[in-house]
């Protein structure tokens, strides 16, 4: 079915295909717009197939290793290198595979969506090039097993995202938002590079597994961890470095916003990967765990309270994205805080992490869906101001249904997937500290209140006269939304299946630092 060399090289193709597609899309675009649309669609379909294939391999056969430029794919430590993994490697374990699944699913849905939502714009050759570049960079970030390689992909994704945020160039506001995002992520990237330099200067290694084996928790390591947390927390939009999120999310085209959510989650993945796999037991997990929990709490509370008074639909959703990021930080932070205590870890720590990681998956789906519905509304109505919408429920039935699904999922109402992950978080965090759990529930209620308000002002009430000619969104946009909505419902109805087969292996992969090191370094 699949030729052997494609199967063995699937991890490399995972980034090679989107990158090659990105570079060729301006050339194809010379032929015609339709040819380019078909080409982009073909590339993203191929990427998705490869992504699912890699994830399948990881979940059935364990961590997939890929060494760039080596004679064999799994030759992480060449015999003549003196025991140092000298090449760039991809180490895709269950956690990475989950992120790959998220990235290719959302990527496919948003590309399908943007084929019609952005077809009215000019400058599309650059748009799809940068979009595919961003997807490739996100896939690279979650697959790599090399610290510097992670930095390179982080920067590629920052540059591509900033370019896409500023894509509506004729509006100065979009450029302002893009510049803000670019400044934050560039300064974050420089901090990250400082941290890499500190670690490299001490241990002469860039490979995550190699570093994890020898790391000491010296004062310099602490400094490096602080720099990394600052950089990646800023990139994933956690309070207090969240100020770029509402601007960037609201000014970007909606398809881009949905992908930006995934890009922020890739930074979140990097944060977890470095805390758990690189530092692991050496860091004072209680302190760092509490730092992450507090970041999460602040994000939850500040995000939701800032969201309630917003009048711009996408700005409101962006603040909710900040607030939902808090849940992930809370869940995984609790897991980190009890990392050293095996009894506590097995009684609620693992569950909390599963909740946090499941929330990453769910958030990408329902938040992507919500941004896409917002995009469909803006596409048809021509404004993002909530006060100038109303009575759209009659005209845009499908969009309304998708919005309801997304809104109920984000508020944690059963049977949608937000409930499943939030329930795991409430339950396990309650065992850790009841007050945190209560705050999380209150934030959830406020989220529901805020979305009820949005629903009422957008879809209910009498139809406004200026929206006389509003129609339902085009088909490709609806198909893109359907994919995400279906996943929201399926993972809400069968959470047990998802948790057992996707989430629990991912959580265990994060906890099992020794296993990661053995897999990567034991290959030779």
């Amino acid at each position, binding site marked *: 079915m699949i030729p052997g060399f494609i199967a063995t090289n699937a991890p490399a193709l995972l980034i*090679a295909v989107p990158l*090659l597609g990105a570079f060729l899309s*301006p*050339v194809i675009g010379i032929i015609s717009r339709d040819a380019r649309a078909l080409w982009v669609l073909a590339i993203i379909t191929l990427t998705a197939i490869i992504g699912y294939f890699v994830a399948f391999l990881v979940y059935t056969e364990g961590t997939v290793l890929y060494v760039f*430029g080596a004679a*064999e*794919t799994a030759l992480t430590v060449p015999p003549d290198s003196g025991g140092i993994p000298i090449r760039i490697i991809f180490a895709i374990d269950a956690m990475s595979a989950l992120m790959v699944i998220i990235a290719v699913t959302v990527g496919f849905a948003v590309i399908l969506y943007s084929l019609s939502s952005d077809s009215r714009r000019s400058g599309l050759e650059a748009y799809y090039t940068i979009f595919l570049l961003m997807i490739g960079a996100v896939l690279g970030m979650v697959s790599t097993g090399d610290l510097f390689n992670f930095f390179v992909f982080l920067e590629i994704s920052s540059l591509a995202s900033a370019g896409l945020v500023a894509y509506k160039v004729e509006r100065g506001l979009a450029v302002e938002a893009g510049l803000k995002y670019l400044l934050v992520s560039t300064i974050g990237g420089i901090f990250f590079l400082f941290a890499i330099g500190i670690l490299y200067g001490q241990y002469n290694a860039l490979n995550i597994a190699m570093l994890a084996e020898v790391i000491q928790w010296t004062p310099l390591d602490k400094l490096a961890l602080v720099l990394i947390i600052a950089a990646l927390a800023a990139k994933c939009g956690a309070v207090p470095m969240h100020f770029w999120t509402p601007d960037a999310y609201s000014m970007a085209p909606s398809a881009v916003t949905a992908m930006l959510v995934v890009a922020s989650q890739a930074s979140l993945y990097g944060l977890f990967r470095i805390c758990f796999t690189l530092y692991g037991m050496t860091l004072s997990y209680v302190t760092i765990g509490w730092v992450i929990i507090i970041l999460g709490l602040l994000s939850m509370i500040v995000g939701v309270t800032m969201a309630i008074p917003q009048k711009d639909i996408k700005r409101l959703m962006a603040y909710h994205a900040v607030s939902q990021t808090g849940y992930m930080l809370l869940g995984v932070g609790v897991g980190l805080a009890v990392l050293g205590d095996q009894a506590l870890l097995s009684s609620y720590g693992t569950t909390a992490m599963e909740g946090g990681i499941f929330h990453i998956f769910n958030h990408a789906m329902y938040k992507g869906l919500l941004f896409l519905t917002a995009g469909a509304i803006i596409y048809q109505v021509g404004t993002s101001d909530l006060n100038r919408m109303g009575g759209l429920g009659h005209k845009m039935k499908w969009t309304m249904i998708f919005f309801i699904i997304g809104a109920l999922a984000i508020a944690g109402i059963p049977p949608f997937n937000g409930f499943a992950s939030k329930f795991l978080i409430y339950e396990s965090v309650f065992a850790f500290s009841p007050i945190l759990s209560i705050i999380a529930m209150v934030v959830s209620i406020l989220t529901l209140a805020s979305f009820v308000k949005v629903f009422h002002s957008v879809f209910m009430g009498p139809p406004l006269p200026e929206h006389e000619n509003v129609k339902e969104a085009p088909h490709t946009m609806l198909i893109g939304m359907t994919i995400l909505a279906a996943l929201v419902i399926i993972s809400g109805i069968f959470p047990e299946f998802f948790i057992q087969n996707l989430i629990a292996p991912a959580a265990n992969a994060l906890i099992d630092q020794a296993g990661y090191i053995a897999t990567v370094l034991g290959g030779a």
Partner: protein
Amino acid sequence: MRMSKIVRFSADVLFGAILIFGFYIILHGHLTPGGGFQGGAVVATGAALVIVAYSYEEVLHMIKKAGLMLQESAGLVMFAGVALIALGLGTTFFFNYLANSGLLFGMSVPFGPNPGELNTGGVLPLMNIAVGIEVWGGLAIVILYMLSGISKAEEA
């Protein structure tokens, strides 16, 4: 804005020299400090020189944006293509299949002090050339676009 005849003539003469110097850096990237990016940047400064010496409208006749964009894509595709060929040969992405093969750039590196043998390095020179082409096109396009922004701002 158009500079004087002397400036334009000097730019014409220097452009060739800059081009050759840039190509030298690109081609010797695997032997001496430098490489595709540095060489490509040098070549792009040649384009910048022409842009400074002549007016924007004249430059648009000399350098085509579409051509540069095509060149940028060609460089990137060549880079990825050279790496992808390795998959067909049963090795990994970016594997240096040309080194020590006796083919193009396939000579073994001679041991001992030597001025540097150009015909070595395997796929590295090919990658340098690809990156050089890409950076040349990319930076020239960046300069052109920025110049177009300035000229419009001055009119307004």
